[in-house]
């Protein structure tokens, strides 16, 4: 699958079909998921309507980590095999990932105010997500450091791989440090997790966020391939004109 898509031409053909599907699924599941989470689900017995924040906060946090993991894999591929498409892909994952991280921090802070009575607390989870945010920023600024695109992409991929150490820290921070954040609810089989009428809107929102992430990064990769192609074509015609005048 990945080797098949590694060819830019094939990727473009794949994206032409897959991108609209992702976009439509994202749109539909956003509409359905937002309806479910705002109107179609019951309020929590402890938090009341505040629990509705979960449906935008938790998927954002998951997608932020997923985007960074995808970014690291793409960086690894680009570092080891020097594949140009992996460079483009890595960079395209970074911007949505940064947006998800920002959204996660903002919604978390808005959710924290009514439930914990504080906007911010320096617990392990919040600090490590903030660190993720800074790592994304550092990645993006290193990515445009030198004018040689290949070189700066390679430097940025090194940074991305070093920064990956933070992802397991985010995952396990709630278990290592007792804090305001609760440990994972969904993956605790056997324990009384989420009731189905809350799990369902959450999963719909996760589908919406992930397909949106797929749609956004695919469009970014597509745009980058096309703009590089036009730049190359321009260079070629420019060279041809120069040769002709000579």
């Amino acid at each position, binding site marked *: 699958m990945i080797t098949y898509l590694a060819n830019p031409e094939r990727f473009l053909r794949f994206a032409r079909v897959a991108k609209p599907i992702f976009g439509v699924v994202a749109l539909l599941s956003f509409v359905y998921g937002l309806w479910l989470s705002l109107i179609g689900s019951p309020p929590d017995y402890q938090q009341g309507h505040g629990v509705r924040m979960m449906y935008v906060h938790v998927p954002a946090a998951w997608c932020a980590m997923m985007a960074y993991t995808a970014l690291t894999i793409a960086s690894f591929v680009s*570092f080891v095999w020097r594949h140009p498409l992996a460079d483009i892909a890595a960079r395209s994952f970074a911007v949505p990932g940064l947006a998800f991280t920002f959204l996660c921090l903002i919604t978390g802070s808005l959710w924290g105010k009514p439930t914990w009575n504080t906007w911010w607390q320096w617990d392990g989870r919040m*600090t490590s997500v903030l*660190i*993720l945010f*800074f*790592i994304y*920023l*550092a990645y993006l*600024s*290193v990515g445009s*450091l*030198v004018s040689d695109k290949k*070189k700066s992409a*390679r*430097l940025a991929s*090194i*940074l991305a*791989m*070093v*920064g990956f*150490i*933070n992802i397991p*820290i985010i995952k396990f921070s709630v278990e290592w440090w007792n804090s305001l954040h609760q440990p994972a609810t969904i993956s605790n089989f056997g324990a009384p997790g989420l009731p189905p009428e809350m799990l369902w809107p959450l999963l719909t929102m996760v589908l919406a966020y992930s397909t949106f992430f797929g749609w956004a990064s695919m469009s970014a990769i597509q745009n980058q391939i096309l703009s590089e192609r036009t730049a190359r074509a321009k260079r070629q015609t420019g060279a041809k004109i120069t040769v002709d005048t000579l």
Partner: protein
Amino acid sequence: MQIDIIKRDLLLATRSKGDWVMGVIFFAVFLALAVIALGNDSALLRQIAPAIVWLAFLMSALLSFGQIFTQDYEDGTLAQILIFQQSPLKIVSAKFIAYIITALMPLWFAIPLAGLMFNLTIDVIAGLMLSVLIGLPAIAAYGIFASALTVVKGASGVLIVLICAPFLMPVLIFGISAVDIYTVEGLWSAPYKALFGLSLIACATALPAASASIKTGFE
């Protein structure tokens, strides 16, 4: 080979007419500014002194990261060493040791003086020095990594801070909690172990990454 680079860096430091003192001066100025900003409440100051000293140490280190490779890059030494088929990891590890000796150790020896400024007890000063010493490899390793990443562009201070800060945040967190716990539990408490672990992780990831960045920079 590494010994030669370290010797050369030490020689350069002794001939630099005291460039390495600048870090210590910054350290002192930062402490003075912090005390002025926080007011002259000595009970409060003694309580937060470890945090301020750690922060001052980290800030002075952050400011000195830019110079690790700049001079060698600009006068061509780095390129010459690489032309002689030396592994960049050797350069990086030599620079790591030389940087600790020339830039971080002077700062470290200034910590007891800072302790006097804040009227700290011997116990707290010892805890502070030990926590900084254990966290020091992590600080140096990430500094060298950031410096190596940006070397082709020339030292850009803000970017280096942006690259290092996320990685140094855990070091700062555990470093400060280590000082607080030293008087109660001593050196074998959890924050010291975590700090030691962070230093090991930093040496294992940031030094090879720095070497890869230098290699990339000269491609």
